[in-house]
């Protein structure tokens, strides 16, 4: 059933916390190279779904298949090594390190993934890693501040740094958790432009998003979750016209 170009397959995943069904029979296929948005009202199970995908939570039933391999039950770092990278909603950066170091660490992870006691070679001699990191910083527009301590950045800049840390790993699948939540309209637009730049680099993106503007600007396909179930799936236009979706989500949130 897995088509050739399906890169991520969430197969009949069920997850409940106590009596609450956070995810019920969620079956989701993400095609390679597309940008797939997952939307839904608060508590619909979006974050749970993301956590299941990166190995933070284990599903009760079902499995997550990435690139033909079951990743359920694997350690988070193993999933990352396979090319699944998550960009966090609340910035999870290395606040004590400077920006360049923040991006170099994931760059090293990509290159020297398995543990290697490379204790005798200086970081400074690894110009390859450094150039990748600088390039990534440049793409998100933080190159000018590469020497600043990450903890001192503004919230918006921290999120751009997050993005740079994700991009430097050249992920095959990038999971973005509400990349524009809490941003001003201007920052939101620049983030959209930024994400658009990466279209067609062989990178598949899954975006969890509240903001319809973002979803319809970026997504090729949209899945709508409500109360842990998929209630609609299709192209942005199809979803927009879906009555159930309007009732469950759009109607309420965007009158």
């Amino acid at each position: 059933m897995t088509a050739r170009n399906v890169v991520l397959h969430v197969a009949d995943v069920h997850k409940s916390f106590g009596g609450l069904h956070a995810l019920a029979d969620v079956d989701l296929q993400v095609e390679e190279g597309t940008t797939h948005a997952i939307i839904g009202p608060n508590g619909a199970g979006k974050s749970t779904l993301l956590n299941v995908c990166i190995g933070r939570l284990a599903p009760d039933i079902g499995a997550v298949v990435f690139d033909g391999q079951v990743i359920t039950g694997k350690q988070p770092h193993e999933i990352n090594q396979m090319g699944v990278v998550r960009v966090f909603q609340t910035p999870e950066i290395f606040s004590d390190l400077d920006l360049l170091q923040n991006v170099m660490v994931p760059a090293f992870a990509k290159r020297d993934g398995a543990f290697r006691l490379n204790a005798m070679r200086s970081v400074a001699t690894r110009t390859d890693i450094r150039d990748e990191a600088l390039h990534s910083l440049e793409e998100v527009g933080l190159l000018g501040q590469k020497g600043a301590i990450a903890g001192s950045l503004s919230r918006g800049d921290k999120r751009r740094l997050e993005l740079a840390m994700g991009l430097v790993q050249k992920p095959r699948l990038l999971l973005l958790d509400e990349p524009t939540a809490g941003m001003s309209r201007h920052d939101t637009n620049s983030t959209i432009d930024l994400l658009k730049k990466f279209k067609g680099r062989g990178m598949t993106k899954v975006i969890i998003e509240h903001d319809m503007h973002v979803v319809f600007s970026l997504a090729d396909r949209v899945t709508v979750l409500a109360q842990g179930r998929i209630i609609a799936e299709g192209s942005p236009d199809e979803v927009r016209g879906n009555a159930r979706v309007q009732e469950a989500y759009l109607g309420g949130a965007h009158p």
Partner: protein
Amino acid sequence: MWNNPARNDWFLLAGFSLVVLCLPLILEPIGAAYPALMQKFCIFGIFAIGFNILFGLTGYLSFGHAAFLGVGSYAAVWSFKLLTMNAIPAIVFAIVCAAAFALVIGYVSLKRSGIYFSILTLAFAQMSYNLAYSVLTPLTNGETGLQLSLQDPRIIDALFVAPQAGLPRVNLFGTYTSGGGYAGFYLCAAALIVCFFIALRIFRSPFGLMLRAIKSNQNRMRYTGFNTRPYLLAAFVISGMYAGLAGGLMAVTDPLVGAERMQWTASGEVVLMTILGGAGTLVGPVLGAAVIKYFENIFSSFSVTTLQGVFGFLPDAIERPLVSFLSLFVGDGWNLTLGVVFMLIVIFLPGGLMEGLRRIWSLFDRRPGGGDKVPAAQTQPAE
């Protein structure tokens, strides 16, 4: 920080080596230029550098590092007893034993983090200490302490030299290192320089960067594709090896070892040294070790009579209360001074002495735009 970093590091290493090797000259004016004290600086400097590789870089606070020090010492003395009085096999043996021990304890303790890690290391160290005092007496000679005796086999020595009367002394191919001579000091100094060099490389390496990233946000490391356990275990074992080397050198300079070397107060001491000097800095721990050992030496030799001599010029009404107050802090009261200073450091100067020096430096260094844009992060190696 990327402007020719390698050259700066070589300067740092050269400067450090120069200072260490010239200690006898530098310490002459303050009356600390005798080998027994200076080799203590070096030994505890090594211990603190090693502790700092774990605590300063990863933030894992071990309260059991003295156990590795003790294991190193015991291993070295056993090497003297069984094999040879030469210092080199003893040191190697000490490092290997401490590494094996650290591997086991680290593997278990690193299953937890934060305060639980501290408690686990503390528990292991206390177990080692208690066992060394009780059932392991055949290995440790209990309360008396492990020492050399005339009946020791010393297999290798027996092959080459005819036994002489009296206890043999620890030597380095003929030069005696025990008993407080300069040979002992220079052996320790050389070891300290090597250790400093290795620590420098670790700080600058990708490995060091990963450790710092773990300290900053371990959770993120997992989602960045790192299995953090091997990194932490490697840091733990390396720092255990440093402690083992320090313990071995203690035995090389004085081949008598008691279990109290493993007690948790001894672990506390290396924590104090590292924090006092500046955790996460390269030079700080060595500085902290030297300062603590120096003032321990000075303060504990002070007595009430010395104080009375110093303040004799004051009128009695002032002298007496002053002397009786100050006598709290000297002699046996040295630990009180240490406790007070340590508290002041943690409260007011969490970056330790290195942070203090850096602040003083920046007061004088008012060049326009002069290099201090980077906020004072503890993890920034300070030179």
